[in-house]
């Protein structure tokens, strides 16, 4: 081990494996003509040492520098990445009395997705009563369809005469249940949880549905969740879990 550090410390000088016989303090060159004259051992050298003083100090300085850098960089990275791992609260919001909504047409409601960003935080949803002809396995009494297109997030619009949701950006078309009928969207329109409380219909967190209208935790637009795709676009930490 001692010899190993010795060769590393003076690369190319000793030429060989640096394995000097005991008592050889640099004057052994005469015995082996092919070996270069070895430098004298550093002060404090003793036979059988496993670590030179210089290697210890170098390692110590690097370790101290590394710890100091990590102490600055790691908190900064954590600071920037923090929001990725925090689940955001989504407050339930009143959107009107139950009598406002019918089961054969959509009523647009506006509410705040995000507070503190002014008008930019508001969004539109289309709400109707559960309709036995349209909705199987829908537990909520009211259905709230998000206007965020499942292609790239443009706002879709309910076109009453056509009974379709239409996206202005790239021509995505959805039927009355929000399922894709044409264009580039990769899954049906997202929905919001709904409930009735204190005589008001309330809108809760967003969730996504696959092509069978099975519930999944909210995915971003452009991310299919049918079959194996749901493993390529996994649940994020920022959105609440949604069961079945």
């Amino acid at each position, binding site marked *: 081990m001692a010899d190993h550090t010795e060769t590393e410390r003076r690369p190319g000088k000793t030429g060989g494996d640096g394995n000097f016989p005991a008592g050889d303090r640099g004057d052994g060159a005469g015995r082996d003509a092919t070996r270069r004259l070895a430098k004298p051992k550093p002060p404090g050298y003793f036979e059988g040492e496993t670590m030179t003083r210089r290697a210890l100090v170098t390692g110590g300085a690097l370790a101290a520098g590394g710890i100091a850098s990590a102490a600055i960089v790691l908190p900064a990275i954590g600071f920037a990445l923090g929001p990725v791992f925090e689940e955001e609260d989504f407050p339930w919001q009143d959107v009107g009395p139950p009598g406002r909504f019918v089961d054969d047409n959509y009523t647009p409601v506006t509410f705040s997705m995000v*507070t503190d960003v002014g008008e930019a935080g508001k969004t539109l949803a289309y709400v109707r009563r559960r309709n036995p002809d349209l909705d199987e396995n829908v537990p909520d009494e009211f259905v709230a369809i998000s206007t965020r297109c499942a292609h*790239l997030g443009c706002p879709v619009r309910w076109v009453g005469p056509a009974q379709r949701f239409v996206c202005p950006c790239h021509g995505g078309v959805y039927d009355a249940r929000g399922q894709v009928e044409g264009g580039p969207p990769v899954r049906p329109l997202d929905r919001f949880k709904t409930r009735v409380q204190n005589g008001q219909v309330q809108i809760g967190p967003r969730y996504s549905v696959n092509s069978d209208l099975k519930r999944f935790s909210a995915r971003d*637009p452009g991310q299919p969740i049918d079959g194996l795709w749901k493993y390529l676009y*996994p649940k*994020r930490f920022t959105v609440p879990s949604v069961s079945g």
Partner: protein
Amino acid sequence: MALRIPKPPLPGRRKPPPPSEPAANGEVALKDQAAEVGAGIVGWVDERTGAAGFAKGQLFRKVPKGTNWFYTLGSATLFAFLSQAVTGVFLAMYYDPSPDRAYDSVQYITNEVFLGDIVRGMHRWGATVMIVLIFLHMGRTFFFGAYKYPRELNWVIGVVLLVLTLGMGFTGYLLPFDQRSFWATVVGVNINGTAPVLGPYLSDFLRAGPEFGATTLSRFYAIHMLLIPLLIAALITVHLYLVVKLGTTAPPWLRAKLPEPLEKESV
């Protein structure tokens, strides 16, 4: 008619100016005094830094025969970056990256601040110019074969610089905070999100949450004015170091002069 690129005007050899005749009363002309002071300052700095030798080495280094106007595209891109940096610094004096105030502050810059529309216009159009120049520079490097050994690493650094520059475009587009900015960013972040596995988390990182929120704008602003410019400046330094270290390539239509083959003498 063949299209010809005009030859650049080449200056002749620099001649030292003749010394002014000393005035009759022995006074040195003011011009010569000023020149002496200037030379004194340059000499003082040079004696302590050795910068003159370094600068001379950079400015008067040899370039291959056939070097032409296409070789200026890299410098042009650098100049576009510097122009963006300077105008960006001054725009930051008036810009307010809060969702409530961003649009108004941009309107204020454009309509109220003296020369504000000029500075904002330089930054806005300069961004496009920089993208165009960086692609032309990349094309020059590709078609002249200047990415080959030993310059592969410089090509890789250049590609990273291209991606960072596109990142500048993406993050800067949000800052005016009008309808186009907002929806273009919504769509752009969602396109980022379609990358498998990591995409959804990348989107959350860019938005600082699951929805476009209060800190999204300030996050884009910090990335746009601090993070990416610092990375670009550092990488440009390495890029230029390698250019100077390795030298530029001759254009591919120039062939090296081969030594005449030896003829075998028959005896």
